[in-house]
């Protein structure tokens, strides 16, 4: 095994990368997928109502509203701009606080308060914002609440927004495109164009070829997964746990790519393999989107064992101590894949010679 030869092949693939569509697709996909989720479906997936506030005086309400969890607040200066944004559904509602509002309220004058509602806003968002506005007014007025409402969350997944549930899908996409597709495609391309034959009559061995492809896929998968999490605001406060979880994901993805790449004789059979088996790769993602489904089924799929730590660390703020078991299972699965890859790699080499 020569590290120098591995690096030479890696350097060649990195140099050829910008000239390869699959390579470029790997770099673009995390951005495209996140944009698709955020821009095209942004308002659908955003769980929080959006309230715009114009404070023409110095109301306590404009300060207090920003402290409320679950509402996205935008402070604006111009009432006309506020109305425009509400009308365009950039905001679900807009509140204009006139000058001297708090003083008039405390003096018992019952000043008028305008709350503009977007015609396209969800009914639930309108109700939330209207009740919130009333509650804030009551606080400034100084009147006590009639009851103390206690929020009790039922069901494990109830507190998560759809956008958070989509994070496993987005991260898995980044890992699969770079780790699985890029790795397998570059290998099959070398085979199909017979450049692999030329490589294997030099001192380069099949193991070194597979390793170089694996390193390429691993680096890009890891980088793209980090970028995806950053784009979705899900970079955890536990960087070591997150990095280990992503590394576990990148390693397994690359191994799946090598399994595909060594098993497929050409691009056509690679696509057939991908179409047949990718359901198994992506299956665990469905269980994050539908938390009411029996979650134990997700554990039957290998990719669950790295997706779960990524999800727990990136979304739920878990630390290494809470995800070590899943990481250990993921590592065990990755180790178990190695002999299969070696056998398939040798079979591929024999097929190359016999072709």
């Amino acid at each position, binding site marked *: 095994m020569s590290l120098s*030869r591995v690096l*030479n*092949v890696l350097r060649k693939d990195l140099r050829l990368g910008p000239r390869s569509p699959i390579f470029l697709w790997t770099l673009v996909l995390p951005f495209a997928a996140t944009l698709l989720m955020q821009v095209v479906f942004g308002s659908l997936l955003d769980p929080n109502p959006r309230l715009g506030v114009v404070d023409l005086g110095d109301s306590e309400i404009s300060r207090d509203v920003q402290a409320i969890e679950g509402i996205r607040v935008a402070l604006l200066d111009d009432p006309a701009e506020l109305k425009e944004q509400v009308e365009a559904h950039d905001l679900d509602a807009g509140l204009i606080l006139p000058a001297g509002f708090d003083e008039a309220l405390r003096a018992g004058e019952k000043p008028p308060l305008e709350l503009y509602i977007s015609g396209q806003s969800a009914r639930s968002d309108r109700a939330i914002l209207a009740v919130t506005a009333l509650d804030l007014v009551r606080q400034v007025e100084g009147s006590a609440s009639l009851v103390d409402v206690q929020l009790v969350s039922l069901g494990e997944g109830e507190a998560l927004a759809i956008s958070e549930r989509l994070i496993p899908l987005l991260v898995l996409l980044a890992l699969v495109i770079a780790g699985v597709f890029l790795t397998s495609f570059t290998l099959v391309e070398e085979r199909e164009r*017979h450049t692999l*034959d*030329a*490589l294997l*009559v*030099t001192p380069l061995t099949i193991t070194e070829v597979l390793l170089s492809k694996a390193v390429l896929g691993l680096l890009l998968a890891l980088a793209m997964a980090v970028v995806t999490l950053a784009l979705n605001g899900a970079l955890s406060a536990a960087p070591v746990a997150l990095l280990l979880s992503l590394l576990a994901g990148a390693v397994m993805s690359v191994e799946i790519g090598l399994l595909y790449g060594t098993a497929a004789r050409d691009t056509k059979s690679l696509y057939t393999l991908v179409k047949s088996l990718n359901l198994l790769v992506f299956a665990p993602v469905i269980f994050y989107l539908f938390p009411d489904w029996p979650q134990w089924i997700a554990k039957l799929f290998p990719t669950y064992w790295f997706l779960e730590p990524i999800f727990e660390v990136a979304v739920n703020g878990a630390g290494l101590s809470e995800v070590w078991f899943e990481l250990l299972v993921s590592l065990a699965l990755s180790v178990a894949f190695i002999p299969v890859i070696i056998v398939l790699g040798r079979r591929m080499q024999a097929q190359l010679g016999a072709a």
Partner: protein
Amino acid sequence: MAAATSASERTQAAISVEDLTYAYGDLVAVDGISFSVAPGEVLGFLGPNGAGKSTTIKVLTGQLSPRSGSARILGQDVGRDRPEVQARIGVCFEEKNLYLNMSGRENLRFFARLFGMPRFDPDPLLLRVGLADRGGDRVQGYSKGMRQRLMVARTLVNHPDVLFLDEPTDGLDPVSARTIRDIIREEAARGAAVLLTTHDMWEADELSDRVAFINEGRIAALDTPENLKLQYGERRVKVRTRVQGEIQEELISLDDPEAGERLRAAAAKDLLTIHTEEATLEQIFIRLTGRGLQ
């Protein structure tokens, strides 16, 4: 048959093959062949498609493991010492397997690095194959002949002691073919052993010190082209003369006791041409195997 490998040849041979057999499942592609190639020698491997030429090269270059027999390159066993053997050989494939998205220069540099030559300068090689001015262009813009010349250049990046050239001039324009033939001669003159497979009998005759006829996995004959022609060809000449304004042809066997008399008689007439009628390699091949080369 002159294919036997003597003990002295084995010690000196760059390529030494003994009773080599390879089979694809039940199909025996190489059937107990033995031969050797000395340093500086060009051995032409002649045979039709499916005769076993490429399979033999694949075994000798470590792409396939033989079922039985031994294959040694520069004294090392190909199967056991594959990395060491591959470091000292150059292989030119029939398939043009270059990196099309890389330039000619990048292709050569990349392969040189795989041979542990990080400071390799590709320009002299590019100049040698007539690609000096196109070295920076991507290979996908090269013509067939240019690609083949680059293939040959790639074969030479590690200054190999043994060259395996699989149909290196097949379908090329005359200029590219001549460039490659010149390089083969130069490499042999440098001391490299060359195993050359080709369909082209003229090329084999021109380049090879010895030729091996391979058919159905076996070597049917192995000798110098001259010896093969003498052994299997007919010793006769064709004499063309003009008699009373008409051209006449006469075949005179050199084994005929009256050959001298007949030649003198022809010379006394208006002699136009005398040609030897030795057999071509293709005719010998057909005679030995009962089939053509295509």
